[in-house]
């Protein structure tokens, strides 16, 4: 297992948003996490990405306990996160957005007396842009991109860090169905080419069933089911959660 959580809990006052979640993910797997609104999916992902501190429980990545590490440390270990609402460097160009990640990956953050081109070759940055299909927009300002392209750039920035585990929080939210499918095809191809393990949260069930190897279902903070897409499709409890009695 590349990643696992043990009895992970997150309380907000008297509200338990994540309730003793035990999740295991194998290397190279694409895992979808689904559930109705308020099920605790985003909170769970934020706990893994260290945006939130767990109330109790442990998180392991490659057998290393990462529960108390800050975000910049887990990012360096190989966990990348794409946010639900794109977090880009909006006033920088598309190229510069990826370049920032490239500088960080190479450990050149405090390099004060060398040129950017010396430590982060344009070709490296362009390679990432080509992989996400944005090389022709390299000089464009990130803020001027369409929402779909901003989502791609978000993935590109995260990929420039060369993660082994990539977390996507509703990657297709706010984009058209065809754009969403293109985006997920891209993610699936990248996962294959770069041997990535992927966890993604998604509300669009077509996307989930088409692209996930395994699906975990959350409800009221608990992990209530995990299985192959075809198993989840026929799971009566999952039907009940989504459709009621």
């Amino acid at each position, binding site marked *: 297992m590349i990643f696992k959580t043990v009895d992970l809990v997150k309380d907000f006052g008297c509200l338990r948003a994540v309730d003793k979640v035990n999740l295991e993910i194998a290397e190279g797997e694409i895992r979808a996490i689904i559930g109705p609104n308020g099920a605790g999916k985003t909170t769970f992902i934020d706990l893994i990405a260290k945006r939130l501190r767990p109330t109790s429980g442990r998180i392991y990545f490659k057998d290393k306990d990462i529960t108390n590490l800050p975000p910049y440390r887990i990012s360096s270990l190989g966990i990348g996160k794409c946010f639900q609402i794109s977090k880009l460097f909006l006033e920088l160009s598309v190229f510069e957005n990826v370049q920032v990640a490239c500088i960080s990956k190479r450990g050149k*953050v405090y390099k004060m007396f*060398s*040129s950017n081109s010396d430590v982060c070759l344009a070709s490296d940055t362009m390679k990432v842009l080509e992989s996400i299909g944005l090389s022709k927009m390299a000089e464009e*300002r990130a803020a001027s991109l369409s929402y779909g392209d901003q989502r791609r750039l978000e993935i590109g*920035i995260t990929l420039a860090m060369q993660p082994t585990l990539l977390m996507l929080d509703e990657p297709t939210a706010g984009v058209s169905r065809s754009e969403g499918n293109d985006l997920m095809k891209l993610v699936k191809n990248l996962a294959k080419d770069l041997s990535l393990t992927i966890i993604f949260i998604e509300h669009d069930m077509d996307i989930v069933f088409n692209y996930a190897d395994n699906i975990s279902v959350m409800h009221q903070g608990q992990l209530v089911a995990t299985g192959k897409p075809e198993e989840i499709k026929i799971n009566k409890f999952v039907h009940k959660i989504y459709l009621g009695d």
Partner: protein
Amino acid sequence: MWKALVKKRFFIFALIAVVVLSIVGPILPRYYTQLLTLTLITALFATSLNIEIGYAGMMPLGQATFYGLGAYSFGLLVIKAHLPIFPAVICGLLISMIISVIIGYLCIRRNLFIFGLLHLAFNIVFITLVSKWVNLTGGSSGFTATLRPAFLSSYVSFYFFVLVMVVVAYAIIKILVESPFGKIAQGMRENEERLNFLGVNTKRFQLVLFVASGFFAALAGVLLAMNNNGIYPAYFALTVSVQGLMMVIIGGMYFFIGPTLGALLVTIFSTEVSNFTSYWQGWLGVVMVIWVTRFKEGILFRRQSKASKKIPAIEMNK
């Protein structure tokens, strides 16, 4: 390293500016040469401030702390410890840097709003300290003493000394902001959280940036103490911090040369208007209100944005 300086447009502009200043300085009447000297020092102070504001999106509300610290560390080493001038300059800058690490560590705790307020609070602490610790600092009168070596005693030689120091400081700042460090700073200005998720310890990065900015402000303070042959609590004044912010905002925070232009405009305005009225600071405030509402990105941005559609972040690097 040198690529930042030899970019054609920047190099030509810098060369012309240095040549013009070298020719104009000695031939101007004494008053104007001295005013130009002061403008160069103030411009360095404003540019130091812009390392944090324009490049990294931080809001240092008490930058006069380092202006004053540079001047006082240097001045007291000469006056009280009787150190020769140039060793005192180096030691003064080192002391300022050490203090800036401590202040930065205490200020950079949570968000940038809290940072600004804590920075301002330190500014107030230091004003009080230098005004009240009479035995060490001379209290509200400060100290008047010869703080220039003999070969810089004439106003022209001192003008050239300041010009050289400012050009060297600008070259270093230019290299710094064009480096990977400068690019990360721009990333922090745009989205600190994203940067954190890209493996950057943003708090530590802010501290390094804070110390770098403080160093250049302290250097400007040293030059100011030399210029005035004295150290006075006014160097720490909140109005100095505010005027620095005004220079950055008026000139254009997204341009390397913006704060220098702002320093020039504010200096001209304050000296010319003060000839007519003692309420010149009030008028400066009125100008600031109009400027912020009409030209919120600074004069350079307005001009550039009409001329081309290129964005500030890209323009900044040219």
